[in-house]
């Protein structure tokens, strides 16, 4: 959930709660004020009526007097005792509009010489109700406007205040150690963000340093190894030419050359890896993937014919990728050769080229390992002693370098590598 949405959510919830509590409170306050007013009016009216009644005792000769706003009823002493003076809110039938309308009523008793009487004085509350409604409505409108304003302000503030944060986030997201330059954030006045930026800068600087050290070490080691390796393998080759080697000696020399070759292949792979990461393959051109694969197929068809593996290519789109031509050759070469190497008798390799994707399928044995580790250095399938375990790692490094995504999947002994450009 986005920060903006979360704050908006909290604003909404707290506003609703405040609005609810406030409207209840406000309603009772308004009601209290209105009742207080009306009750005062009724009380004054009571004095008026009592004056009137005292002035004209004849009025009380009937048992019940009904006037527009009051009624007087004769009651007994017993009734009067259970009837203290009180105000009440009631609903009465409005004869004109034929509906119930709210009234406020004062019920009291009084006595004259003629006996005990109950006096009920009423006044309508319709006007006051309307007033209360209007006030409440306005309160709601005010709240709504305020809410919209706060959300808007919050959004604007977030955008403004959090801009350095989002800028940092974007930079960190797109940052790759392989670029080999420290990250630089833009200046911000907000101390928290300043601290965040400094922390990330420091973190990345340290990472970069150890990354570069590691890279330099691999590179230097590989370089330093090359010359003695070259000398050793050349000497072995010379030894091979010697005419009077015994069989036993010949075997020793053979084992020596084999392993020196393996070592030098390994070393070349490591150098290649560090060169890719050092961004030493800068020249790029538009590579026609289909043509590259076709050339590769041509190159390999004698081998596949020998192994009885069929090579197929399906073209569903024209894939053109901007990358280094040598790396393109290594990338597709490693994948196709991998598919041939881990194949079975009478198997197949099927390559499908789409506009932004190339997938390479092959039949093979069940893969018994952790697919997560597939692309890691020196993670090899034990069946192939002479494999360096770097082929797929090189593939992955090239993909990472160009930000292609590569995935591996297996279904019923059909293995698939697919690259999205």
């Amino acid at each position, binding site marked *: 959930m986005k920060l903006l949405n979360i704050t908006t959510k909290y604003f909404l919830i707290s506003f609703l709660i405040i609005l609810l509590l406030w409207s209840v409170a406000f309603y009772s306050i308004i009601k209290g004020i209105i009742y207080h007013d009306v009750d005062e009016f009724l009380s004054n009216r009571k004095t008026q009526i009592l004056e009137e009644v005292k002035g004209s005792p004849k009025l009380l000769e009937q048992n019940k007097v009904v006037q527009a706003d009051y009624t007087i009823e004769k009651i007994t002493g017993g009734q009067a005792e259970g009837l203290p003076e009180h105000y009440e809110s009631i609903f009465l039938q409005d004869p004109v509009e034929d509906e119930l309308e709210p009234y406020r009523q004062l019920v009291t008793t009084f006595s004259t010489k003629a006996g005990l009487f109950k006096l009920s004085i009423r006044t309508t509350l319709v006007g006051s109700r309307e007033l209360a409604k209007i006030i409440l409505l306005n309160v709601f409108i005010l709240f709504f406007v305020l809410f919209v304003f706060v959300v808007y302000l919050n959004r604007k503030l977030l955008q403004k205040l959090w801009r350095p944060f989002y800028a940092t986030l974007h930079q960190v997201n797109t940052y790759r150690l392989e670029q080999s330059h420290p990250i630089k954030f833009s200046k911000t006045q907000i101390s928290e963000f300043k601290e965040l930026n400094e922390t990330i800068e420091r973190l990345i600087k340290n990472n970069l340093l150890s990354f570069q050290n590691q890279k330099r070490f691999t590179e230097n080691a590989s*370089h330093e190894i*090359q010359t003695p*390796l070259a000398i050793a393998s050349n000497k072995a*080759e010379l030894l091979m030419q010697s005419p009077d080697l015994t069989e036993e000696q010949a075997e020793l*020399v*053979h084992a020596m050359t084999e392993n020196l070759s393996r070592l030098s292949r390994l070393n070349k792979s490591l150098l290649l890896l560090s060169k890719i990461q050092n961004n030493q393959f800068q020249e790029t051109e538009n590579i026609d993937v289909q043509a590259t694969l076709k050339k590769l197929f041509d190159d390999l068809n004698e081998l596949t014919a020998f192994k009885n593996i069929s090579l197929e290519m399906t073209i569903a789109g024209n894939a053109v990728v901007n990358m280094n031509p040598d790396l393109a050759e290594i990338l597709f070469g490693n994948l196709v050769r991998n598919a041939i190497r881990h194949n079975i008798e009478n198997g197949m390799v099927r390559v499908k080229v789409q506009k932004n994707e190339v997938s390479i399928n092959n039949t093979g044995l069940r893969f018994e390992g952790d697919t997560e580790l597939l692309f890691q250095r020196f993670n090899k399938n034990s069946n192939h002693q002479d494999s360096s375990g*770097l082929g797929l790692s090189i593939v992955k490094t090239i993909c990472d370098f160009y930000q292609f995504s590569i995935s591996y999947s297996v279904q019923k002994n059909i293995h698939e590598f697919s690259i999205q450009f």
Partner: protein
Amino acid sequence: MKLLIVEDEPAMLNSITSYMAKSGYVCEIAATYAEADEKLWLYDYDCILLDVTLPDGNGLGLLQQIKEKKSQAGIIIVSAKNSLDDKVEGLNFGADDYLPKPFHLSELQARVNAIIRRRHFAGINEIVLGNVVIGLDSKSVRVEQHFLTLTRKEYEMLLFFVSNKNRVISKTSLAEHIWGDHIDQVDSYDFLYSQIKNLRKKLKEFDSVFNIQAVYGLGYKFSSQ
């Protein structure tokens, strides 16, 4: 044929000279930039092996000088840096080939031969070895009058064998020559073996004087019976 080997590593220099001398090349050596510079002014060579990292300068500098002199020598850059920049730059400066260290001596031999062929036999593009004639333009091979039908790999293999005739060639160097610099996944000696078997059969069919011999435990040798 005269070779100049510019290489600062004595052990390297030694091996190369020893291998090339057996093929009948006259090898001169230079261990420093200055030495190479001097020799290049004084003599003409058919082919120059040039290590780019020299103690007193960058071997690529020598390239320009060779070009200024309008020398006919073929140039192979040998580099331990295995760096693409060297390769691109070297080839731009007029080098004919680039060979990263470590390499097989048989591979070096094949490259030197190829360059010398290109330089000296322009027009007469044929290699004759005993009764085997290889047409380099048409990529055809015949034994006396009988043309052989070879696959591309068989042809490449034959050429490699011819360049290193009478030498023991290890399976690895042969495989690497055929598969190129396909690091890591050089596959299947079985395939190589079957190719060699086929090639041998085809040569034998027409009684070629030279043929491929298996050298027990080591590899192969192209020699007369």
